[in-house]
C-alpha cells in the first residue's frame, strides 16, 4: 500500500506541492515560535543559568532577578556559617542610568561578578578576554547591543557614562542579552560597587555553591531563619524569573497563539489535500476492498501519504527555520533550537498531519466495497 499511496500523492504534482508547502509553512511557523519562546526563556534567566550555583540568597520578597536590592555583608556571613556551604559568590545586578556617546540618556543593567570564578561570568566573549576586565571601570557589553549603545567603529576602548562615571569597553560578549532589552554591562564586582557607590561587602545576590547538593533545603531553611533574607534553589529562581517575564508578560501566550494558528492552517491545508486525493481514488480503493484488502490496509493509503507529508514538510520546515533563525539573529532576536524544541516541534507537525488525515480515514472506513459496481 505504501507504493500505491505515495505514487498517487506524487502523481498530482500541484496538489502535492501545495500540501508540502502547507506543512513546511506550518512546521517553520511552529518551530520558529517555539524557538523564540525558548529564546525568551533563555534570555530571561540566562544570567542565573550562566552564573550557576546551587542556590541564590536575596532580600526577602525578591522573585525575579531584575528586582534586586543590595544586601549587607552580614548576609554572606550568615550563609557561610552553614557547614554544607563550600563557596559564596557576590553578584551585583541592578539597573542604572547611563548616557550614550551622543548624549542620549538611557539605562543599562550592571552585572558585577567575582573575577576568576567558575563558571566565568560572562561566559561567551565575542572580542577580548575575561582578564581584560580586571582594570578599573572596564566593562563588557554584548556586540549586538553596540548599535543601541551608539558605539560605532571599534568598540574596544569606547566609553560610556554610567551613573555619572566613565566606563571603558574592554571586551564584547556574544549571546548575552537581556529579555528586557536593557543592555547588560558586565564588570568585575569592585567596579560595579564603585559605579553604584556600594560598600565593599555589599551585593545584590549571594550565589552559593554547596559541598553537597542534597543540602539545598537545609541551607534554604538556615537562611530563612533570618527575617530579612530569603534563599531559593537556582532552578526555582530560574523558573520564577521565566514565569515573571515570559508567561506573566503575555509573550508566551502570544507565541503559543501564533504557533497554534500555524497548526490550524497546516491541518486545513493538509486535510484538504489528503481528502481530495482520497476522494479521487475512492473507486480504486473500493476495488482493493472488494479484492479483499482489510480496513487497515485501506487506511494505510491515507496514513502513508500523511506520513510522507509530515517527514518531507517537517524537514523542509526545519531547514526554513534554521534560515530564519540565522536571519533574525542579526536583529538580535534569539531563536533557540534545543533538542527538545526541535523534537516537540516536529512531533507537533506529525500530530498535525495525523489530525489532518482523520477526515480521509473516516471516508475510507465508510467506503463500501459494493461501491465498485456503482
Amino acid at each position: 500500500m505504501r507504493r500505491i499511496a505515495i505514487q498517487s500523492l506524487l502523481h498530482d504534482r500541484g496538489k502535492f506541492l501545495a500540501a508540502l508547502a502547507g506543512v513546511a509553512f506550518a512546521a517553520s511557523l511552529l518551530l520558529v515560535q517555539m524557538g523564540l519562546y525558548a529564546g525568551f526563556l533563555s534570555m530571561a534567566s540566562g544570567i542565573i543559568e550562566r552564573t550557576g550555583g546551587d542556590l541564590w540568597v536575596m532580600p526577602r520578597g525578591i522573585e525575579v532577578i531584575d528586582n534586586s536590592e543590595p544586601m549587607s555583608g552580614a548576609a554572606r556571613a550568615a550563609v557561610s556559617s552553614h557547614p554544607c556551604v563550600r563557596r559564596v559568590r557576590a553578584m551585583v545586578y541592578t539597573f542604572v542610568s547611563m548616557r550614550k556617546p551622543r548624549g542620549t540618556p538611557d539605562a543599562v543593567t550592571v552585572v558585577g561578578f567575582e573575577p576568576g570564578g567558575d563558571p566565568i561570568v560572562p561566559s561567551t566573549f565575542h572580542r577580548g578576554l575575561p582578564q581584560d576586565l580586571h582594570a578599573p571601570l572596564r566593562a563588557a557589553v554584548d556586540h549586538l547591543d553596540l548599535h543601541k549603545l551608539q558605539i560605532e567603529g571599534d568598540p574596544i576602548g569606547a566609553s560610556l557614562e554610567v551613573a555619572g562615571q566613565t566606563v571603558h569597553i574592554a571586551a564584547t560578549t556574544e549571546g548575552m542579552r537581556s529579555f528586557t532589552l536593557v543592555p547588560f554591562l558586565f564588570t568585575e564586582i569592585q567596579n560595579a560597587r564603585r559605579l553604584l557607590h556600594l560598600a565593599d561587602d555589599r551585593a545584590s545576590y549571594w550565589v552559593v555553591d554547596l559541598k553537597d547538593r542534597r543540602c539545598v533545603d537545609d541551607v534554604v531553611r538556615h537562611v530563612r531563619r533570618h527575617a530579612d533574607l530569603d534563599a531559593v534553589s537556582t532552578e526555582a529562581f530560574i523558573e520564577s524569573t521565566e514565569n515573571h517575564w515570559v508567561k506573566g508578560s503575555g509573550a508566551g501566550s502570544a507565541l503559543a497563539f501564533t504557533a497554534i494558528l500555524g497548526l490550524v492552517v497546516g491541518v486545513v491545508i493538509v486535510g484538504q489535500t489528503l481528502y481530495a486525493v482520497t476522494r479521487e481514488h475512492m473507486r480504486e480503493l473500493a476495488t482493493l476492498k472488494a479484492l479483499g484488502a482489510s480496513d487497515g490496509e485501506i487506511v494505510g493509503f491515507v496514513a502513508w501519504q500523511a506520513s510522507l507529508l509530515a517527514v518531507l514538510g517537517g524537514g523542509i520546515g526545519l531547514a526554513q527555520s534554521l534560515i530564519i533563525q540565522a536571519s533574525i539573529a542579526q536583529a538580535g532576536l534569539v531563536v533557540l533550537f534545543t533538542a527538545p524544541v526541535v523534537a516537540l516541534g516536529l512531533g507537533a507537525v506529525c500530530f498535525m498531519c495525523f489530525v489532518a488525515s482523520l477526515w480521509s480515514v473516516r471516508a475510507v472506513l465508510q467506503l463500501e466495497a459494493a461501491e465498485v459496481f456503482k
Partner: protein
Amino acid sequence: MTAEALVRATDVTRSYGVGALAVPVLHGVSLEIRAGELSLLMGPSGSGKTTLLSILAGLLRPTTGAVELCGVPISSLPDSAAARVRRANLGFVFQTYNLFPALTALDNVAEVLTLQGHSLREARAMALRSLAHVGLADRTHHRPGELSGGQKQRVAIARALASDPRLVLGDEITAALDSATGMAVMEILRGLVGPRRGVLIVTHDHRMERFADRIIEMEDGLITADRPGGHA
C-alpha cells in the same frame, strides 16, 4: 460429472431502506454458478443484476437467504472473514477499469498481489505473466493514461487473473469499449474459463451471448430465464 459450484445463492432477498420505506430489489433468488462456465447475467436496468452480483461476491449482505462462495457461507461471515474469502477466490473486472492512474500497468497488477502477501519481486513476476497472458507484455510500464480503453480493460483483466481466482466477476465490462475491442476482451475472458474457474458477467449487450455457456435473465428482482448461451 457435474462441475463444482463456485457460488450458490439460496432464496436470496434484498431490500434497500427499512420499515415502510424499504424497497425490495431481489425477491427470493436461487442460483448456482459453476466452474467451467462463462455465464451472462442479463436484464433491463433496475432488474437487480448488480445487487445480485454484489451479494454473490460477498460485498453486500442479503436481507434474507444464504450465499456460499467456494463452499464458505460468506453471507454469514463477519466483514474481515468475508474479505479473506474474496481475496482467495475472486477476481473483478469493471466497466470503468478502476486502475490507479499513478501506477504502471505492471504495478497496478502487482500491488494487488502484494496485498495478498506476495513479495514485490514475486508479485511483479506474476503480474508480468498475467499481462503477457492478456497480450500486454509490451505495455507493462505504461500508466493507464497512456493506454487505450481496451488496453486498460486488459490490464484490469490481468489484475483479476493474476492471483489465479476461482471465479471472475465482471460488470458491464464492454460498455465503454467499441465493438471490436469489446469482442477481443470477451475472447480473453472466454479463455479464462477452465475446469477450476468460472466467469460471471453482468451485461446488457446481447452480442456477448455467443461467448457464453449460460444466460441468466432477470426482471424485477427475479430470475426469469436460465438458458444455454451461444458457446454451450
